[in-house]
């Protein structure tokens, strides 16, 4: 695997106009948590192009099944059963294989299993809200869950989060590390949400909006939503036994 002897080449610089800015006053918490000095840039070194890798031995059999992984025996989580599937790709469109993808979400009523969430909706005793998987050779990943509910949150006087699933994704280099959120096609709360609107470009918001995928659904069981995740690409790919890209 990646080591000092086999670095991959520099990552493409992040397009920071595509990502949200640090300071987005309509999302109030960002106001005091946003750096105001310019970021310092330097070319990638091994510290940025290498990163942790996780083996399949990490995974338990229900890690990618949120319907069952917190449920008591014979029980399952309440809600609309869905499959979320897609691929982890890089900006060149190449699959990013073998990377850890973690996800977390509210239950079908829009309530998180967290002591700081005091929303009126009840906890589901059979739903924890976390899962993980590792992308395949072709970058593919999938998990089963229930569709999370939307919920109100303290920001403006009446702000609601659209239904969403949080994603944490590793790449092959630590500089690819990314956290984002997946939304659901057709949700009228998407364009109203101050967190969604930290993103300026409607095409970038569209990139986070999963599409209903009937072909991947499980008849009489679960609908499917397709969500591809794109990580930073690199200027050059290291071919096996070649010390330098290029």
């Amino acid at each position, binding site marked *: *695997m990646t080591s*000092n002897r086999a670095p991959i080449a520099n990552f493409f610089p992040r397009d*920071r106009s595509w990502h949200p800015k640090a300071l987005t006053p309509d999302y109030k918490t*960002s106001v005091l948590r946003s750096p105001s*000095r310019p970021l310092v840039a330097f070319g990638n070194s091994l510290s*940025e192009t290498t990163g942790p*890798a996780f083996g399949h031995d990490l995974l338990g059999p229900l890690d990618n099944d949120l319907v069952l992984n917190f449920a008591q025996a014979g029980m399952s989580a309440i809600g609309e059963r869905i499959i979320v599937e897609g691929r982890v790709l890089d*900006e060149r469109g190449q699959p990013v294989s073998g990377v850890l993808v973690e996800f977390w979400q509210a239950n079908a009523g829009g309530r998180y299993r967290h*002591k700081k969430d005091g929303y009126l909706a009840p906890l589901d005793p059979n739903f924890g809200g976390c899962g993980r998987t590792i992308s395949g050779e072709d970058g593919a990943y999938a998990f089963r869950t229930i569709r999370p509910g939307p919920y109100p949150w303290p920001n403006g006087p009446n702000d609601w989060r659209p239904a969403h699933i*949080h994603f944490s994704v590793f790449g092959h280099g630590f500089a690819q590390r990314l956290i984002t959120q997946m939304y659901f096609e057709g949700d009228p709360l998407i364009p109203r949400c101050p967190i969604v609107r930290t993103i300026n470009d409607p095409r970038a918001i569209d990139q986070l909006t999963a599409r209903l995928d009937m072909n991947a659904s499980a008849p009489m069981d679960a609908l499917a939503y397709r969500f591809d995740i794109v990580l930073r690409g690199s200027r050059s790919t290291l071919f096996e036994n070649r010390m330098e890209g290029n």
Partner: protein
Amino acid sequence: MTGVLYPLKESPSQTAGPYVHIGLTPNFCGIEGVYETDLGTAMVSDKTKGERITLEGRVFDGGGNLVKDALVEIWQADADGIYHAKATPEFSGWGRAPADAETGLFRFDTVKPGRVPFPDSRLQAPHLNLWIVARGINLGLNTRIYFEDEAEANTADPVLARIEHRDRVATLIAKGGGGRYSHDIYLQGAQETIFFDI
């Protein structure tokens, strides 16, 4: 026309939100039984080579308030300056720590990393690479931690040398010695930590 050469854009970031612990450290926030342990909590064992160190730190916002919901990951070389993607029973170069819900302290028990070459083959000073996420942080923040007692190596470090405003270099250097270091991170304000566009 990068859009033609490189057909895809990186997925835009969204904040980790207030409940990042559910996904990344579920046992820490009381969701037990899904994963045996939280990932990234153990970096060293009694077989690990190198100088053991403990690093404690806190994250502050621009109003001087503790960011108690922060989650920090580190990525580092081993004591010989080698990065290992795969953890072994001896060492994991990757660690993950949530801030304590009361004190805001995050803590890593690890080894002091060795020196890693820069692309031009100069040696970097020993350092930890940090990635910080929390509610209100729209895109994960990258910074580094160097060590106060590595003054000579720090002086020769190519990344530190690049920093134009010299008075800010200190925001990247953990205080302490003898294996115990502390390092506070300021997201904003007069003491704002240097964050990198890597």
